[in-house]
């Protein structure tokens, strides 16, 4: 019946195949169509119709070979049986993330607006030292507060702050390590590529089986895995781009590896690292809506409500709110980046 029967017969594996049992599984649509048109199940195939020797097609000829569905089922079973062990390791490691997100959201929402808004403006001034940027931030946050999106905007900001902070905390050292070890870079680059392309739900659903959906760390992990990439890449790049002549000079002064890193490489790479931080913050914001699918509070929830109920206005205002947050975060980090460059030039 199946194309590859002959192959298994020729290899003398027929007995092994039949011992494997496997009644062939459910009937396929193609079989049914063949039956409906009155013909036999196996049309006399020409060489043109030779099926791909895939698991499913080989299974049709030899019951002992797994079908692809057995493979996916096996993966699922393996994951479920390893669940408790994974939980023991991963749960405590990621718990601080839940705690930080919960506290930060609570702090930023519970603090009265007349303290929170001036505080944010003061932070903006401290970082950017530019009245224009402070004015922009005041105007944007004022607008969001004015249209009653204050709480949601604060929740979103709190999530971004925590996630971006952790990204920098982990990303910069990883980037430095990658710049110093070619082997680590060879391993790291494909991992970074994967992090940016893997659809978030592919790893979020298994994570729900590990933790509880109610844990803020679920969306924290989703945001961090996606947004950590630029800060790693740009730290790595920044350190590699440091002029070899400067390093040679540092060697000539008899600097140790540690001294070179802290006094020469990192200061010279700082503009690139800051550009990475800026990109990381932008990418965290890009994940806000996806994070809301795993119950992150904030503007993303309103966007989802707008989409699901076709309340175009709600979606547009919330979406515009996310854009506003992106603009102010971008301007603030860019202004501080410019300040670093200027202070370096002045030295």
């Amino acid at each position, binding site marked *: 019946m199946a194309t590859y029967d002959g192959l298994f017969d020729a290899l003398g594996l027929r007995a092994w195949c039949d011992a494997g049992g496997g009644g062939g*599984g*459910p*009937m*396929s*649509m*193609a*079989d*049914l*169509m063949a*039956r*409906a*048109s*009155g013909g036999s199940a196996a049309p006399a195939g020409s060489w043109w119709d030779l099926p791909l020797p895939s698991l499913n097609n080989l299974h049709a000829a030899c019951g002992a070979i797994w079908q692809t*569905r057995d493979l*996916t*089922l096996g993966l699922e079973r393996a994951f*479920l049986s390893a*669940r408790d062990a994974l939980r023991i390791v991963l749960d405590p490691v990621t718990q601080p993330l839940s705690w930080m997100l919960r506290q930060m959201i609570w702090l930023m929402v519970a603090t009265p607006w007349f303290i929170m808004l001036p505080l944010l403006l003061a932070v903006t001034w401290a970082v950017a030292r530019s009245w224009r940027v402070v004015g922009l931030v005041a105007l944007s946050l004022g607008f969001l507060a004015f249209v009653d999106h204050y709480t949601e905007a604060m929740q979103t900001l709190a999530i971004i702050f925590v996630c971006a902070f952790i990204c920098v905390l982990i990303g910069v050292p990883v980037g430095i390590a990658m710049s110093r070890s070619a082997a680590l870079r060879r391993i790291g680059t494909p991992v970074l590529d994967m992090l940016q392309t893997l659809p978030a*739900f592919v790893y*979020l*659903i298994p994570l*729900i*089986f590990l933790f*509880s*959906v*109610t844990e803020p760390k679920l969306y924290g992990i989703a945001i961090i895995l996606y947004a950590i990439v630029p800060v790693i890449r740009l730290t790595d790049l920044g350190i590699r781009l440091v002029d070899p002549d400067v390093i040679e000079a540092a060697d000539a002064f008899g600097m140790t590896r540690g001294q070179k890193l802290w006094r020469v490489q990192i200061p010279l790479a700082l503009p690139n690292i800051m550009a990475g931080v800026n990109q990381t913050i932008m990418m965290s914001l890009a994940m806000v809506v996806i*994070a*809301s*699918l*795993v*119950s*992150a509070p904030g503007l993303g*929830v309103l966007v*989802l*409500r707008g*989409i*699901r*109920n*076709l309340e175009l206005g709600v979606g547009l205002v919330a979406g515009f709110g996310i854009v506003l947050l992106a603009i102010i975060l971008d301007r603030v980090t860019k202004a501080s980046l410019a300040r670093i460059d200027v202070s370096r030039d002045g030295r």
Partner: protein
Amino acid sequence: MRHLLSMTTLALGTALAVPAAAQDAPGTCGDLSIAQMGWTSAEIITEVAKFLLEQGYGCDVTLVKSDTIPAITSVAENGEPDIVTDLWLNSAGEAYTRLEAEGTMVTLANVLDPGGIEGWWIPTYLAEAHPELTTIQGVLDNPQLVGRFNNCPEGWGCRVVSDNLIRALDLEGAGIEVFNHGSGETLASSMGSAVSAQEPWFGYYWGPTVPLGKYDMTRIDLGGYDEAKFTPLQNPNAPDPQVSDFPEAPSVTAVTAALVDEQPEVVEFLRKMTFKTDELNTLLAWQDENSASAEEVAVHYLTTNTDAWSGWLSDEAKGKLSALLGQN
């Protein structure tokens, strides 16, 4: 994973359909498009409809992946797809009633008999260990046994009803934390996670769906359905909400008004196409046992329930499918 699988079968399905249609000489039917909702019962229903329309009526059917609101909007704006089935009226809401009133879409029949089941559920092992939890009063008296309430995501029709019920019952006052899910995926996986670890779970779900087919769940008695009490529950922030169970949710087949004029035979078939809710639950359980794709479930249904679907067909279509009907 399941999505990916069904996308692949969809692609394969269309690839196979082309030569089949070419052989059969399309006749009067021509191209048809059916909106295929993302959940499994809808996938099975549309696969069955596709097969019967192609093999029995010589149509060339395209299944379009969609969802309730996008499908209706698309019909309203573009007049495509021609057929929307497993359309849950209470989640389609006003968007659909308006289209029906304008005459753009025509409701043909209830595709589920008696209809979908909505409600608040706990796992059956929990109900067996604590029989008092099968009524809402028992849950309110023993909040520590059920943990938290898993609520619908923002923007779902059931969210409005459940929010009102939560206030009517004062669930939070009874000591049950309410957790608002961000999406249907997390709602389903929280249930799957709890049931596979034999932990307590309490929340909203609806059927026929894969999770309810796969996991043994018990519906909590909210004290029966009362239309007068339930209708106000569907408005956000209803004043003074009263407790009522969810009614059986009608799920219908609807087509564009144009199709009714152009394809009377196809419309007649769709008018008769009805699945028993129990039958679909059995199919979903069978699917899980065999880890089959929606297409394979459709094949299973078509080969084992010839009596049911042969009644939907016109005599001519029966003739074309006689090879299948005769064999069983």
